[in-house]
């Protein structure tokens, strides 16, 4: 069987599962059926995605299908990895979480069915984003993720949830419309330049033709694309929807939104960044990313500190981290790009973990207000330990995963000569640390309220979280060779160097990789 067919299967799996669930009646069919369909879907996605990623990285060649509309290269693989791995883990977490909600009466059988239907549709749309090579399709699929997740955000149908869902759809569609404008500008320009105008929608041919594009037009188009898709990624100035939507959604969905979806939008920005760099040289695109990145970081850090709601804090921290990713792209150079990509992966796992844990706390305390949560360590000791590790990781402490891209970002920033930006970034980080440490000392420690039952949550809830913690520690202590290899190949694509071993051959980094082959276990910071 041809491997490109598998890409179709990968897309078809969650879509089919979702459609099947949609046609099944919610009241007469047992909830078990929905759960089983969901489980089969997320497991199949992991298997197919794993096989495809390995094929791409081993072969060193991208795969495409359906006339080049769908395309998977090393850059996309990094994000497919995130979608599939976190789709499985949050999907697993969803099982117990939804049962709990059903039992508690905060959702009914209809919403139960809706949840799994849209969850799988959500996975499908995200896969569509990262696999599409057609820039119009990228825009469409980004819009599709918005439409699908609006229903997930509004699952609880409370006033706040509906308001958040409404704000989400209004701000996002308005914002992403800018993205469409940028996309169309590039398409129009390409259609003039390229011999075959049908090729003008395909990203792969755009990159090749980029040096002939009109510089002024591409500048405008790039700013529009960054603002537009940046809306979806949660970048300043259109980040306002994110804290509402990510905090009102059911926790596993928050985990996917913050852990994965905003990274998919980052991928689209990176694709446009590549075109812009090819057309204009690195100075202008980097300047744009730096400005937007540092403003996002500062504003979000202040908001993280001042927010009283656990999930809002986490959501603002996502804005901050996406800002860091933008900054890394702005610093540029192989180290900066690699830091941006690694930061996406590490932050994805860490933030997904923290949102799942916020789910534990909701189940236990019934509130997200940090003023009312205290003594988690007495009420649910395992959750408390996982939460402390998660918060340390989010604050960027070693030896946890996010420390590595953080140090890389500092090194990249200083080497690129942006010392002041690095100083601001460091101060913002100190603020984030303060905010999260206060959560630990006030909510995790201190005395628990009397009436709470002192019993931790069940195995099925804790198991996916423990796996995420293990991943965070593992990636922090011994980064697996294949991940680094994948990031390196992806960096080569962003840098547009034919040389896959871009980190190995960079003048600054070559000593790092002088030994030629990396062995998996020796990358440790």
């Amino acid at each position, binding site marked *: 069987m041809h491997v490109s067919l598998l890409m179709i299967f990968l897309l078809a799996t969650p879509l089919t599962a979702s459609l099947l669930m949609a046609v099944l009646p919610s009241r007469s069919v047992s909830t078990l059926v929905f759960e089983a369909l969901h489980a089969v879907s997320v497991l199949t996605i992991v298997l197919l995605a794993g096989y495809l990623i390995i094929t791409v990285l081993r072969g060193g060649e991208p795969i495409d299908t359906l006339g080049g509309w769908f395309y998977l290269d090393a850059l996309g693989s990094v994000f497919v990895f995130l979608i599939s791995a976190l789709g499985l883990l949050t999907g697993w977490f969803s099982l117990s979480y939804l049962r709990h909600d059903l039992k508690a009466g905060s959702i009914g059988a209809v919403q139960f069915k809706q949840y799994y239907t849209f969850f799988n549709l959500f996975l499908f749309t995200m896969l569509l984003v990262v696999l599409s090579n057609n820039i119009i399709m990228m825009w469409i699929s980004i819009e599709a993720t918005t439409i699908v997740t609006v229903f997930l955000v509004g699952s609880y149908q409370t006033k706040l949830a509906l308001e958040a869902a409404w704000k989400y759809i209004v701000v996002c569609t308005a914002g992403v419309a800018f993205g469409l404008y940028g996309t169309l500008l590039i398409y129009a320009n390409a259609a003039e330049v390229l011999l075959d105008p049908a090729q003008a929608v395909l990203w792969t041919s755009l990159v090749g033709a980029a040096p002939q594009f009109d510089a002024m037009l591409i500048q405008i188009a790039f700013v529009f694309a960054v603002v537009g898709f940046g809306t979806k990624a949660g970048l300043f100035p259109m980040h306002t929807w994110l804290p509402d939507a990510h905090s009102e959604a059911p926790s596993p969905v928050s985990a996917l939104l913050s852990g994965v979806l905003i990274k998919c939008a980052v991928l689209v920005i990176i694709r446009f960044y590549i075109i812009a760099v090819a057309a204009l040289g690195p100075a202008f695109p980097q300047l744009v990313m730096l400005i937007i990145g540092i403003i996002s970081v500062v504003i979000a850090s202040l908001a993280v500190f001042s927010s009283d709601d656990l999930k809002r804090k986490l959501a603002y921290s996502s804005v901050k981290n996406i800002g860091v990713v933008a900054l890394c792209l702005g610093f540029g150079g192989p180290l900066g790009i690699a830091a941006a990509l690694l930061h996406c992966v590490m932050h994805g796992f860490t933030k997904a973990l923290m949102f799942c844990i916020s789910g534990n706390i909701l189940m236990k305390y019934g509130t997200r207000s940090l003023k009312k949560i205290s003594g988690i360590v007495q009420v649910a000791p395992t959750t408390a*330990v996982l939460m402390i590790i998660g918060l*340390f990781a989010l604050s960027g*402490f*070693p*030896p946890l995963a996010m*420390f590595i891209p953080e*140090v890389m970002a*500092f*090194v*990249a*920033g*200083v*080497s690129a000569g942006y*010392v002041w930006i*690095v*100083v601001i970034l*460091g*101060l913002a*980080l*100190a603020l984030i*640390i*303060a905010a999260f*440490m*206060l959560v630990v*000392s*006030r909510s995790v*420690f*201190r005395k628990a309220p009397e009436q709470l039952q002192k019993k931790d949550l069940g195995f099925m809830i804790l198991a996916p979280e423990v796996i995420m913690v293990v991943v965070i520690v593992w990636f922090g202590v011994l980064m697996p060779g294949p991940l680094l290899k994948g990031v390196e190949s992806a960096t080569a694509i962003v840098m547009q160097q034919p040389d896959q071993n871009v980190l*190995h051959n960079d003048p*600054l980094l*070559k*000593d*790092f*990789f*002088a*030994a030629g082959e*990396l062995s998996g276990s*020796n*990358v*440790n*910071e």
Partner: protein
Amino acid sequence: MSVFILTTGALIAIVLPLLTGLFIVMCPQKAARVLAIVAGVIATAATLIIWCGLAASPEEALRVSLVTIGKVEVIGFVFDRISVMLAACFVGIGLLITIYTVGYLNEGNREHPDLPRRRFFAAFIVFIGAMAGIVYSSTLVGMLVFFEVTGICSWLLIGYYGNENSERSALKALILTQIGALGLFIAVGYLFAAAGTFEVSAIASLSDFNKAVLLILILIAAWAKSAQLPFYMWLPSAMVAPTPVSAYLHGASMVKVGVAVMARVLAEAGAIPEVVGWVIVVGALATLLFSFFMYLPQKDMKRLLAFSTISQISYMFLGFGFFVFGSDLAFEGSVMHIFNHAFAKTLFFLIAGAFSYTMGTRMFPRLRGVLRKQPLLGVGFAVAALAIAGAPPLNGFFSKFAIFAGSFEAASGNWLLLAIVVVALIETVACFAWFLKWIGWVLPGEPSDEVAAAAPLPKTMGFVFVVLIIFTVVSSFIAAAWLG
């Protein structure tokens, strides 16, 4: 072969405590202290074996790359005269304090009756491992990693009592040192951009300008951790921690991180531009004078000790500064002072803790006639106070003497530097007088009410005091003989 033993030993001293910390969290509460002590004993033994190993080896210094990516060393160890001595000191004192804690954190404590929670021992043992890591690290990245880990541990420990005040103090310590750490973060990037490596020894090959920038960046981080101006604020607030924690923070961990990092960096930097020396010396003098004036209003023994630590650390920085101006003796004196001060200050704090434990107060006005009622505490108090004040034959005298002798040597011919040394010297005399005053107040005479009603001293504490008193007397000879 011997390199292998040293590396394994260092790994045991660092990794075993870290793992034990994780393990303690998962074990029943009662096992926590036993596990911590066992891990502490093994780690201490490992550092002592390393010390002997280096002594037996013909080499001056041994270097091991632990984690390399290609040719770039990311984390590595260096075993030389400074690192093996300081590691044994920091880890060993950590062990002694752990033993003391078993006697301190219990229901018999008159100031803070409490059962020890696992959190305490977990954070404490991790702290010990991280200290070993800081000292052995030969790369800036390694230092940064352990620097941050000590930040977390100190945060957990300072906030241990969990009230509003201790939470705020813990956060203050973490954030101020984190802001300082920014210097180290940027230094990592700067060194890599300038030399393409993270190894501290690469600093020697940099141009004068780069070297000065880099050293001042690291100096900022060292100031923050070592509670020097302008970052000192966290240390007096950190007094809300349980006393064993204060003892470790002051004696052999937090504040020593800064000076240990500085010692390592300066030792390997080769010829250093004078501007760095000026920055260090002026900073040290400012802190010195400031902390002396802060002595005067203090009534709480622990707060007095906090400012005394700040000024003692300034002496070390002063010595480093004069090393830049060309005096090796001043540098040796500073390193010796790190070692000596560790024992004396730990002893002093633990005595303060014993006052709280047995008498329920550590306020000077209420402590009189200790010698008659609690002779061991009285002797400990006298030894510690005299050592801090720098009276011969106690350890503090010798290291301070070396610092000042070296400073005079380097300062001769430069009136401004000479003036600085003289001011610092006057400060030590004043400090001496101030400590004598309190010795005269606390020790002799009839016991006050609180002292008369004192509970008996737990055996574990007594054991720790005896060991520390002995070391406070002899440590200077050990250090002098070893550093030569």
